[in-house]
């Protein structure tokens, strides 16, 4: 392409050369956009090596694991953001708070069934069966409750505003966020709310290259990856998934082809919130405590992850989550933890500057 332009320039009479700045103007962004993933990976590897040389390979490996683990939770929240944005172009500010609320659900259900009270520590990992049974029960309940919350929020605060100016639902989203935070604050108090007396998934699963990987790391990562790919398969393959994609692309056309828009959007909210619920469950197992205002920070970072990956793109949101996790952990070791948030957001600004649709985002269809 560039070659051809030069040819054309060469045959032109003198004084009629396409101007250089004009050439740069349109070539540079394209080049940086294409090269950007490579630059990103190089930067990550560079950061990893830098940590490895200053603190030793095992520390670097552990930091990588730490990053992937926290990234997995970001990824699970980011999936909900990306789905909702993809379908109704709304930044659902309440999503982070749905995550927090779901963590309270998870703890309450866990206590209800005695899971958090049981000393399952002794069961894991030797009696993995008992543990898995607990999880198999807790996951669907928590996700169901989270999903229903999401659908309710959509019904109350967003549906009526679907035809309104775009900022109106954004403000109601902020309102819902305040409302949920207030409710959690009033119900569960302001302090960290402990999940149970003692963590219940313990023990080292295996050691990879000197890095001990614990069972709860395994739980977090496998949940995130599993749900991400399940979601991807669902959206690709199922009827509802197709309806979602159709609605996302052109709501009117989807309506004309017989898709129930309301139900599809509600389903999107249900699935997105249920995924946040899954994230919340693994969060409460991993960290053992929840606080009412947790959702704000996690929500913003997860949304950043969704944008980084290319909003509307499921694999992108997952990738973005993991990337943000790793970058924040590496960055906070290299530059100091106080810059962690700044690093994440600076990263975001850089990515969007050079690749305005995110890493895996698709180009907007051309119209003129």
């Amino acid at each position, binding site marked *: 392409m560039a070659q051809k332009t030069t040819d054309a320039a060469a045959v032109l009479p003198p004084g009629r050369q396409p101007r250089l700045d004009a050439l740069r103007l349109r070539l540079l*962004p394209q080049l940086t956009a294409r090269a950007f993933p490579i630059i990103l990976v190089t930067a990550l590897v560079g950061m990893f090596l830098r940590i490895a040389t200053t603190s030793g390979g095992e520390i670097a490996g552990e930091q990588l694991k730490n990053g992937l683990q926290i990234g997995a939770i970001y990824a699970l929240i980011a999936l909900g953001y990306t789905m909702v944005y993809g379908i109704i172009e709304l930044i659902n500010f309440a999503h982070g708070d749905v995550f927090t609320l779901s963590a309270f659900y998870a703890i309450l259900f866990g206590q209800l069934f005695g899971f958090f009270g049981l000393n399952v520590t002794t069961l894991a990992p030797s009696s993995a069966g008992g543990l898995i049974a607990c999880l198999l029960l807790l996951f669907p309940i928590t996700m169901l409750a989270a999903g229903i919350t999401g659908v309710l929020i959509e019904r109350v605060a967003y549906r009526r*505003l679907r035809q*309104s*100016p775009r900022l*109106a639902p954004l403000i*109601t989203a902020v309102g819902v966020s305040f409302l949920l935070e207030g409710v959690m604050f009033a119900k569960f108090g302001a302090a960290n709310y402990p999940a149970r007396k003692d963590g219940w998934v313990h023990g080292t699963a295996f050691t990879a290259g000197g890095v001990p990987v614990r069972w709860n790391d395994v739980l977090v990562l496998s949940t995130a990856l599993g749900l991400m790919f399940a979601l991807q398969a669902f959206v690709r393959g199922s009827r509802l998934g197709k309806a979602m994609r159709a609605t996302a692309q052109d709501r009117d056309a989807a309506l004309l082809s017989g898709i129930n828009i309301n139900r599809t959007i509600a389903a999107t909210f249900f699935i997105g919130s249920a995924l946040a619920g899954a994230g919340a469950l693994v969060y409460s197992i991993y960290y053992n405590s929840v606080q009412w205002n947790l959702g704000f920070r996690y929500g913003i970072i997860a949304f950043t992850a969704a944008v980084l990956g290319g909003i509307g793109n499921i694999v992108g949101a997952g990738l973005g989550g993991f990337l943000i996790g790793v970058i924040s952990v590496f960055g906070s070791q290299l530059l100091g933890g106080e810059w962690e948030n700044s690093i994440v*957001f600076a990263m975001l600004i850089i990515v969007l500057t050079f690749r*305005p649709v995110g890493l895996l985002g698709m180009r*907007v269809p051309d119209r*003129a």
Partner: protein
Amino acid sequence: MLETPVSPIPADSVDLPATAGQTREVESSAIFWLLAVGGLLLVAMGWFLPWFVEPTANGIGFSPQDVVSSSPTGVGTVLVYVMGAAMLALLAGLVVDAVAVYGHRGRALRYEGARAVLALTGVVCTLAIWVLIGLSHEEPLFGALSASAQTDNAVWMTLTGFAICAFAYGLRPWIIRHTSVSLAGVAFIVGGLVPYIFNQSSDFISWAAGSLAIYTLLGLGLNVVVGFAGLLDLGYAAFFAIGAYTAGSLFGSRHGVHEIPFWVIIFLGAAVAALFGAILGAPTLRLRGDYLAIVTLGFGEIIPDAANNNLFSQTGGPNGISGIDRPGFGHFDFGTDYRYYFWALLILISLVIICMRNLERSRLGRAWVAIREDEVAASATGINTVSGKLLAFAIGASVSGFAGAFYGAELGIVTPEDFRFAVSVTALTIVVLGGIGNITGVAVGAMIVTFLIFWVLPHMTEWSTTVGHTTGITQLSTVPYEQYSFVVYGVMLILIMLLRPAGLLPSRARKVELQTGMESESLAAVRGTV
């Protein structure tokens, strides 16, 4: 070049109703309603003022009606009764109006004469009380007064509210014809008199009004970015911070610089903020709406973070910068007489509003609207979308920088916590709630939001306790309202948006837009440079 236009072509036979004039009529009468209802609200507040401003020691306040009824001896009592009757008549008129508007297809009844008489009665009573209070103490006017100092504030507030109401009703046709002038005139006069209306607690009211003014400035600035140019900015507090830190570090004991006049400093704060606005704008030009939103959000997080981390040892870390000098004119120092801050802010806001209105009607304002509505067409029509967006960011940021510089000087301290995401959301809420793109709407939105945040929510406990004491329902005094302030605020936001999705005073264009959605796309996306 084609300078002379083409010769006329016979117009199509289609006859169209001239709807433009009607829209204008509707908007003007919205201003009328604002004045009328706002005036009534002020009257009501006057009656319940002790509850609003400051409960007495045991939490029980009283209204002028109490004074009047408890000792109906003074001349003022009679006047207040007359005024009350006139006000009730006007109130009835309001109801009649509302019924008429719905019953007669948008045509209000014509009884301007009667209204004018009622209004005149009120104005005469008002003036009489005003003059009498000036001549004598309140005791001969209202009979024996209790020690509570709030009573005459309440009287003053009632008077002012009535005066506005009367003005609105009596001069309704004139107001509808001269919307801006009347609104600005009333706002300026009443605004300027606020410290006197509340002469017993002028510090308090000036401070509260100052908070309102700061948030109004924030709303006005954000309105340029979000309302005029249609760029969603979620990190607006960053510029507020930049203005405040610029002024704070230049104007005070931090570097021992006291010589630079404050009025230079605030412009410097605005200029630095504008510069940062343009710097932020530059990388975001190619982004579509919500990507832009998240980048601005990120910027809004980075700035307070940098301040908190004591960037270049200039920002003082979590303690922020204190010892900021108080502003003044030459040798005259504002000190802690908050009336001066309030008046200065009032003048600043007026200037900003005038500039905003100028911008709105200028070449640049049209370019912004064009960019907002259709970036591709705007670009093809000869508008430099890049510089247009950058200017929107810079001008919006500069207003915020103004506000920030003033805020720092008024408070004497700037800390990173004052500029977190919640502030950006509050500013955005003001703009959206009031009516995006409408300057009057933004002012109204700021009033409502600050009233909620700084008066209603903090005082819920006290009001409830007062009501509990008065009614004997003691449970009311034990409700922990602090816990629910977020819930209440959230529910209010949701309800207002559900009921008025285009804001309380939507701009003309937004009203039209409401009927159909509109789509926009970025030039960069169309050009496929990604």
